[in-house]
């Protein structure tokens, strides 16, 4: 700890980060997108700590969403997309949970969810868009009226209004801001001053972080202040938005992390197959989540062969020639 004096009070293990910030019934936002930069180590730890009744708010989260839903941690879900690209056109446990009416869910689009996080980040109560006009997204409210009065749930799914600056008919949709209790992210770098640097696409991670009451960031490594401040144009978040920092190399596995490692096709395929069957899925959780004693243990199970296969070429950013079938 002494190496990182500026962030000593925010450096912690996965167990402490989750137990301090991810409470039963909290509203949780997850960074990343489908098969990339999901904060998987945190998601697994949430499952291990058996956090309950989470209100998950996502745009297109994939793997972390599906594990949390499948493990029964999620009660309520606002979502644009539950899929994992070619590895699961619809996330399997998400699909089953909706079909079996096991969760409360409300659909938005990706832009709508991103704009809602932006509104939260800007501390404005709502934001207008044209997206949604004519869509059933605006015809079906997923949440019943009694839920609408609960903390962090918008009083209605959306509102409509005439543009007050136009004399012609010009209708817009107003979307309510999102201000999650906690946002969890995985980044490539955190400086020992607490500055976060993500590389590659950032999706809506930055808006999700700024919208939240608390932010947990896991990272591939912690790097010196002198490095991260030499070209600060590249940085993603200043230190004061970050409440917990956990160093977890490969912390996004089996999803990808630009410049560090590719997604793990073998694991994603294994997951999909096991998720299709309830008994097999329990086995998956037992083996890969409940049954691992540490992150090192988890990576040992992934195996050196796969770790080497998915290792990214640091210039190209991914693992060229990786067998991705």
């Amino acid at each position, binding site marked *: 700890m002494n190496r990182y004096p500026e962030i000593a009070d925010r450096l912690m293990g996965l167990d402490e980060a989750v137990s301090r910030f991810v409470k039963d019934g909290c509203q949780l936002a997850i960074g990343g997108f489908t098969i990339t930069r999901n904060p998987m180590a945190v998601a697994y730890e949430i499952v291990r700590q058996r956090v309950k009744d989470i209100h998950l708010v996502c745009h297109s989260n994939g793997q972390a969403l599906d594990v949390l839903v499948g493990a029964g941690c999620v009660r309520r879900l606002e979502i644009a997309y539950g899929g994992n690209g070619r590895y699961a056109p619809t996330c399997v446990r998400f699909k089953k949970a909706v*079909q079996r009416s096991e969760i409360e869910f409300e659909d938005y689009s990706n832009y709508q969810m*991103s704009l809602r996080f932006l509104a939260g980040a800007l501390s404005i109560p709502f934001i207008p868009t044209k997206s949604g006009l004519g869509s059933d997204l605006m015809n079906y409210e997923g949440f019943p009226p009694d839920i609408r009065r609960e903390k962090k749930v918008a009083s209605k799914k959306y509102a409509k209004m005439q543009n007050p600056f136009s004399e012609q008919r010009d209708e817009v949709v107003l979307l309510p801001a999102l201000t999650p209790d906690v946002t969890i992210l995985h980044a490539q770098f955190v400086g020992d001053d607490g500055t976060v640097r993500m590389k590659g*696409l950032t999706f809506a991670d930055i808006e999700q972080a700024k919208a939240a009451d608390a932010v947990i960031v896991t990272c591939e490594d912690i790097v010196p202040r002198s490095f991260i401040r030499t070209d600060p144009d590249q940085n993603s978040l200043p230190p004061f938005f970050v409440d917990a920092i956990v160093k977890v190399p490969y912390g996004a596995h089996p999803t990808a992390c630009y410049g560090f490692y590719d997604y793990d096709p073998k694991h994603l395929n294994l997951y999909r197959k096991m998720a299709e069957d309830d008994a097999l899925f329990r086995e998956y959780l037992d083996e890969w989540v409940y049954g691992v004693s540490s992150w090192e243990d988890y990576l040992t199970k992934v195996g050196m062969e796969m770790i080497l296969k998915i290792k990214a070429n640091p210039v190209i950013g991914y693992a060229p020639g990786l067998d991705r079938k």
Partner: protein
Amino acid sequence: MIQYSDNEMMALAAGRFIKDGDIVFAGTGVSILAATAAKRIFAPKAVIFFETGGIDPSLDEIPMAVADLRAMAGTSLNSGLIEAFSIVGHRKLHTVAFLGAAQIDRYGNLNTTCIGDYFKPRTRFSGSGGACDVATFASGVITFMQHEKRRFVEKLDYLTSVGWYKGGNSRKELGLRRGGALAVVTNLGVLRFHEETKEMYLAEYFPGVTIGKIVESTGFPIDTSMAVEADAPTPGELQILREEVDPQRLICQAVLAAPQK
């Protein structure tokens, strides 16, 4: 005789719609195959980008998801979702989007949400993702479909993404300034939309496919009076597809991945 897969035929048929200067919104599967084929064969000055924010990636390998690291390598810019969707709707850009769907109706409206009741669906799909957004904002949408009666329906179980809405002028009346369904490319042919009514009609049937097969695979009556046979892929086109666009043959040889049943 030249052998080719459905995906290859579809990618080339769709790719021909792209013009130099178009900003092409791509997804995964046949959509990214079509977008890349368009750029390498028909419209080298088109720009491919993803809703995740990756603009004009080098695409030396084909992405398996829009958040694939391959969508952020060699790009002009790596931005975020909000920037990406603001590009789709920008008035100074001509943007063409490739989408897929579980169901489509005669006006090109799309369902990627569910089959059955929304609250207790028989089948739940991934949801809108960015589909509703790009259907709202793009200059035109090209949709890839498996051509089956249960997918080409009179009434969608859920209208996720607006095409020509209720036909005629109804899309404009919603307050949407531009855009609409440009074409539907299936494993059997290419469908377009009547100028006035905005109803779907058969524009092209693929080599070896009969008009009758298409009519019986479509869940609503369809005008076939203007249908012509599509050109088969040329050996040169297939070579580019297989050697440059998808050297690992991840999509070329696969069947179209529609949302699961």
